[in-house]
């Protein structure tokens, strides 16, 4: 892992990975959307609104996945003082917040025709909303200090403290029997979804993941470039003074 702490080595690796992850994103999201919108059957109860699920469920997974990435990166940064881990944690927060927001938005759009309400104070929905607030808190805390390394450290501790929410979200549908339906993909006894609906779901989930990887690489690159610019400016200022 420490081999990748070197930003130059990371940038070389990123340059190798980025075209592949970007290309895969286009292919997977294209195929996923085709299967989700055209080539999969409507649900016997929900009709065509089931197609919202092909965005909603992967977005929810990614909301949790980004937070987990952020927490793991934060732990790495705190324990091994890994310089890139801070950048990765900082870069994943807005992407994760975007996915979480997308999940809540599509959930509301689906909930109106299906449950008859945009929003319910159900355990799963509420814990997802808390996740969104945790992302916002993380983003605010990173930028709240004059010294960027202080912000990164404080945000890392917050990310780890907020991680308690992730298992709560995952198991909220099992612990509280409220409106949101329980897990149907990852559960004991195999998935309860027909293969024709599973395929677009998995394609979209993989597409979202490669999208996250691509955006993460771009954002980390931008952060490293920003740090370089700051260093150059400082050198210029000190050189003149």
């Amino acid at each position: 892992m420490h081999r990748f702490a070197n930003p130059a080595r990371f940038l070389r690796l990123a340059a190798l990975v980025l075209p592949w992850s970007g290309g895969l994103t286009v292919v997977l999201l294209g195929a996923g959307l085709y299967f989700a919108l055209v080539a999969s059957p409507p649900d016997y109860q929900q009709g065509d609104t089931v197609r919202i699920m092909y965005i909603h469920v992967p977005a929810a997974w990614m909301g949790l996945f980004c937070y987990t990435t952020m927490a793991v990166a934060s732990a790495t940064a705190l324990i091994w003082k890994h310089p890139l881990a801070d950048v990765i944690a900082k870069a994943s927060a807005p992407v994760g917040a975007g996915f979480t927001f997308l999940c809540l938005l599509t959930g509301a759009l689906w909930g109106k025709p299906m449950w008859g309400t945009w929003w319910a104070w159900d355990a799963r929905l509420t814990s997802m909303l808390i996740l969104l607030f945790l992302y916002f808190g993380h983003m605010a805390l990173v930028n709240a200090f004059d010294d960027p390394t202080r912000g990164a450290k404080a945000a890392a501790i917050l990310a780890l403290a907020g991680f308690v929410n992730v298992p709560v979200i995952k198991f909220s549908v099992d612990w509280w029997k409220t409106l949101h339906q329980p897990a149907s993909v990852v559960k004991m006894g195999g998935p309860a979804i027909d293969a024709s609906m599973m395929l677009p779901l998995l394609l979209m989930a993989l597409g979202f993941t490669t999208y996250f990887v691509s955006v993460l690489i771009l954002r980390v690159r931008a952060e490293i470039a920003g740090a370089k610019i700051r260093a150059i400016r400082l050198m210029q200022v000190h050189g003149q003074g």
Partner: protein
Amino acid sequence: MKSFVEIVRRDLRLALRQGTDSVMVVTFFVLTVVLFPFGIGPELNILQRVSPGVLWVTALLASMLSLDRLFQTDYEDGALELLTLSPTPLPIIVMAKATAHWLTTGLPLIAAAPLLAVLLNMNSSGFVTLIGAMLLGTPSLSLIGAVGAGLVLGARRGGVLLSLLILPLYIPVLIFGVGAVDAAIHGFSPNAQLLVLAAILLAALPLAPWATSAAIRQAIE
């Protein structure tokens, strides 16, 4: 253990001599609760319906308002730095400071809550549960709040930031605190919710001081 008691006594003495802090927290609590009947109208059955939620939300805000002085003054005058250098482990010191914070804010809030419950026409069967739930819940608020107070040390606009960080983490305590009182008012057993509140407290007791000390260490580095 001796230094734990010493720090609690020091913080209590400081709070007493500076005087107004606990009084202000309770005054804020009372005033905010009294605003609600003006806001939603004086119908007694509506007030009764919303009383657990109003009491918990305002108690939560009141306890959050006083968080910034948990470490901020010690951070500014350098006392916090000396405390971290002492042989006592930092988590113990944090726990002592959180205890003092709870004694100066949580306890007065609990004392004021039954009176306000009467003002809001709460059913008398909810009183005991309200006190019990607040006894279990408000220490968690102080402990979780200490993490946030440690994180925002030295930040710009720390007060607003603190609420953004801490309020999401307060939500579980709020949900189960209100749930317990609601159950008691409607004649159900509040045991399940009280047990969850106790579980939250037992989880926060070792974990929050640990996270807070990490936050304080990076603040005084």
